[in-house]
């Protein structure tokens, strides 16, 4: 386990990792602080990556909390199946812990295969089943030959680390067991893998038309609205585009090392980002044709988008925003807000990689005071007040922090109902920020009750 962890934590493609001193390395791998943590575990992270594969079943081998408190709760949308809304768990009991539950696991896989006929089954190990030494890899192998379906073990005990590490576990499982097991029929002219887009609230459907319009073919989506099959031939793509998660660089790097597929990182939040990302892809393909398509399409779309944004921009102009979100969003959303004419006062760095932080700093011209370290709701509200900010942009767990502070809020979490990617998403974002900023409710909330008026 320890060796495997080292291999996963060590990301050679990350410049920072190589130049880090011992002390810095230690800091990066800092353990969570007991009594002062936020965020999910490695199992959570693994599930986030794989659950969007909705024609595959996801079986959680553990006691009830892991599945019972988490299933049917992701904002990911799919047209290929509905297995992502199902919770399958071995729900192990005390007796299972004493006697072992490998046979139960195998029977569960067979039950799912026969009854729900998924294209594959992902099996997740969790803290308890990992501690009692269940060999899920062997069980998956046995069950797989019996049910004639791919059964993929995802070794993801929660105690091994954070969500980020769990993302890597999922990537590891895909590389080890899935990628390279099928042949695509037609790969198109400019075939890419889209890595780290989970189709939350349907964001993929805001991004897909852009690729289509410029002539890039998405061969394998990892994993928003993905069919299991397309993950199998990700090794046939000619480039990988990592758009949402540094943690999934692991997959991109593996694809590069083992199959020679180059990769780029990008974002589809913000018009400048969209264009840059597309041009980076074009440079991989070294295609002038693609470049030309991109130039003309993006300039057309930018014009069109600004036209649609026009009614909202005056209300957003120079409004101050505090961004409290994780990972890639901590920088990618800054560009969107900037394009809407808003001013970001600080951005959080929790769950962000050093690369993410560097990008935030780029935005703030190197001003480190713009980085907001981990903080609780009180810290967030104090900052909003101190800077006279108009909006908090954060995940759902902080929504009620904002409501308690009676501050306008925009939810960018996994469970949200609205999509903010691509050109369409820009307009959607402007609309929803305007709705909360202009809601009359805040005036009511700030008013005093008759008996409180002096």
């Amino acid at each position, binding site marked *: 386990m320890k060796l495997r962890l080292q291999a996963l934590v060590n990301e050679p493609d990350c410049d920072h990792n190589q130049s880090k001193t011992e002390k810095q390395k230690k800091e990066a791998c800092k353990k969570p602080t007991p009594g002062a943590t936020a965020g999910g575990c490695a199992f959570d992270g693994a599930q986030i990556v794989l659950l969007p594969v909705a024609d595959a079943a996801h079986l959680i081998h553990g006691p009830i909390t892991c599945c019972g408190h988490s299933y049917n709760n992701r904002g990911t949308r799919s047209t290929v199946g509905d297995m992502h*809304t199902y919770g399958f768990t*071995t729900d192990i009991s005390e007796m299972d812990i004493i006697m072992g539950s490998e046979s139960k696991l195998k029977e569960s896989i067979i039950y799912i295969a026969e009854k729900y006929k998924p294209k594959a089954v992902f099996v997740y190990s969790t803290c308890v089943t990992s501690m009692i030494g269940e060999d899920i890899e062997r069980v998956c192998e046995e069950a797989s030959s019996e049910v004639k379906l791919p059964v993929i073990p995802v070794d993801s005990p929660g105690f091994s680390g954070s969500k980020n590490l769990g993302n890597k576990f999922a990537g590891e499982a895909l590389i080890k067991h899935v990628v390279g097991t099928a042949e695509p029929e037609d790969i198109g002219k400019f075939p890419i893998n889209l890595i780290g887009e989970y189709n939350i609230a349907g964001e993929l459907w805001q991004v897909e038309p852009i690729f289509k319009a410029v002539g890039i073919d998405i061969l394998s989506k990892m994993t928003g609205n993905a069919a299991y099959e397309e993950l199998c031939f990700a090794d046939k793509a000619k480039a990988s585009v990592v758009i949402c998660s540094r943690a999934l660089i692991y997959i991109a790097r593996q694809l590069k090392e083992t199959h020679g597929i180059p990769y780029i990182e990008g974002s589809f939040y913000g018009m400048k980002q969209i264009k840059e990302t597309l041009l980076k892809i074009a440079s991989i393909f070294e295609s002038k044709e693609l470049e030309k398509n991109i130039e003309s399409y993006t300039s057309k779309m930018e014009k069109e988008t600004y036209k649609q944004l026009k009614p909202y921009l005056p209300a957003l102009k120079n409004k101050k925003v505090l961004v409290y979100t994780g990972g890639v969003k901590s920088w990618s959303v800054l560009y969107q807000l900037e394009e809407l004419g808003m001013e970001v006062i600080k951005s959080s760095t929790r769950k962000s990689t050093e690369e993410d932080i560097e990008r935030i700093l780029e935005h703030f011209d190197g001003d480190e005071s713009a980085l907001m370290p981990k903080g609780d709701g009180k810290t967030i509200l104090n900052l909003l007040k101190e800077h006279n900010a108009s909006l908090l942009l954060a995940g759902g767990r902080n929504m009620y922090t904002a409501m308690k502070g009676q501050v306008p809020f925009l939810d960018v979490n996994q469970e949200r109902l609205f999509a903010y990617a691509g050109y369409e998403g820009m307009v959607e974002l402007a609309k929803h920020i305007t709705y909360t900023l202009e809601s009359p409710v805040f005036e009511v909330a700030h008013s005093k009750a008759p008996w409180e008026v002096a």
Partner: protein
Amino acid sequence: MVKVIDKPLSVNPLKKSQVLGAVTAFLGIDSCMPLVHGSQGCMAFTKNFLTQHFREVTPMQSTAVFDIATILGDDSNLHDGIKNVIEKQSPKIIGLVTTGMTETRGDDTKATILRFREKYPEYGDVVIVPVSTPDFKGDAETGYGEAVAALLETALSCLNVKKYNTKKQVNILSGMHSTAADIDWLKRLMADFNIEAFVLPDLASSMGGQVTRYYGLPEEGAPLERIAKAGGADFTIAIGSCMERAADVLLEKCSIPYKKFDTLTGVKATDELISWLIDYTGEPVPEWVQIERKRAVDAMLDAHFSFGGKSCSIAAEPSLAYSLGRFISEELGVKLQSVVTTAKEGNFEKLNAEHIICGDMEDLEEHLSDSDFVLSNSNALNICKRKGLPLYKVGYPIKDMLGHFHRNFIGYIGAMNLTFDLGNICLELDIEESHRI
């Protein structure tokens, strides 16, 4: 007979863990930090779940047991967790909730707490309530009941019990299925019967939206000083069978007699409570209670045309399933097709239903038969969509509906509301049926 469907797994679980129940109970205590002893996810999933359910800030923390610590199993995570929570949040109480992971490791949390006390005498005034809630057994309701029992055991023994005024003192142990509206109704009722009632836990005050500022700890729930004084009360009322353990603690430790109400949903069940109150206090029945009863009965009369011949299925925690099932079948006259719940035994066995199943949402889906509507939590929505059946949302989680926590399910008013809500579902079905050509 409670059926358990023979299968190796749970598909779309109905069951939530003891961890969720225990944390929920602690959220109803003023200045109490629920501290989940397990890996980060045990707490994070639970927090996400309860935040969506209550639409409130839900303070809780984790000991974040992490790799090496997991294997070694020393005190450090727990000690650091308690210390950090105390230093950062200054709680008066810490509700220490174990998980399957730390229970599998065999942690002796009581001994660990003793060692913490020795090591950090300066934190001696913070009450630490350990509760054993592995998620490989029990369900949310047992975890909730265990947490309240453990809280009383700890708080009663560590603080002086004093009788403090002349009114009759009654402890009300509110079950996990009580909504804020239910708790408020009980408080008003008790006050008007001249009883000084103490509700434990008091989720209405902490999670009902009355705290209008940010909080790092639950505020305005049942306060510690008052919990300690619960030992001086004259009587205890336990609502729902999962609260019996806690009532037993008060009986055994402080000789306080109790009465358990398995349900307060429906006219008959409310009559039982009011009769008891009349006997116990000798006070007249408040006028508003009399009016509410008339209205409830009138509502039931008006609605009964739509209930005849209808059937429904329920999937909920045992106490809630029993309360709803009894009212619906015995007072509204709707047939119970299937009752799916999360325990193998309990009073729900007495319900007159075609199937009583200890199981999951898949079992519900496969035993709906000719049900006209379903009562369950938000996770049943997919099933109801597939089957084209209306879903009346009850239980945990309710994540796709506003205001559930402010609906009454108990008392005459609860009977009236349920009658209207379910009656409207049935009325719509009748109108649809009658207009079909």
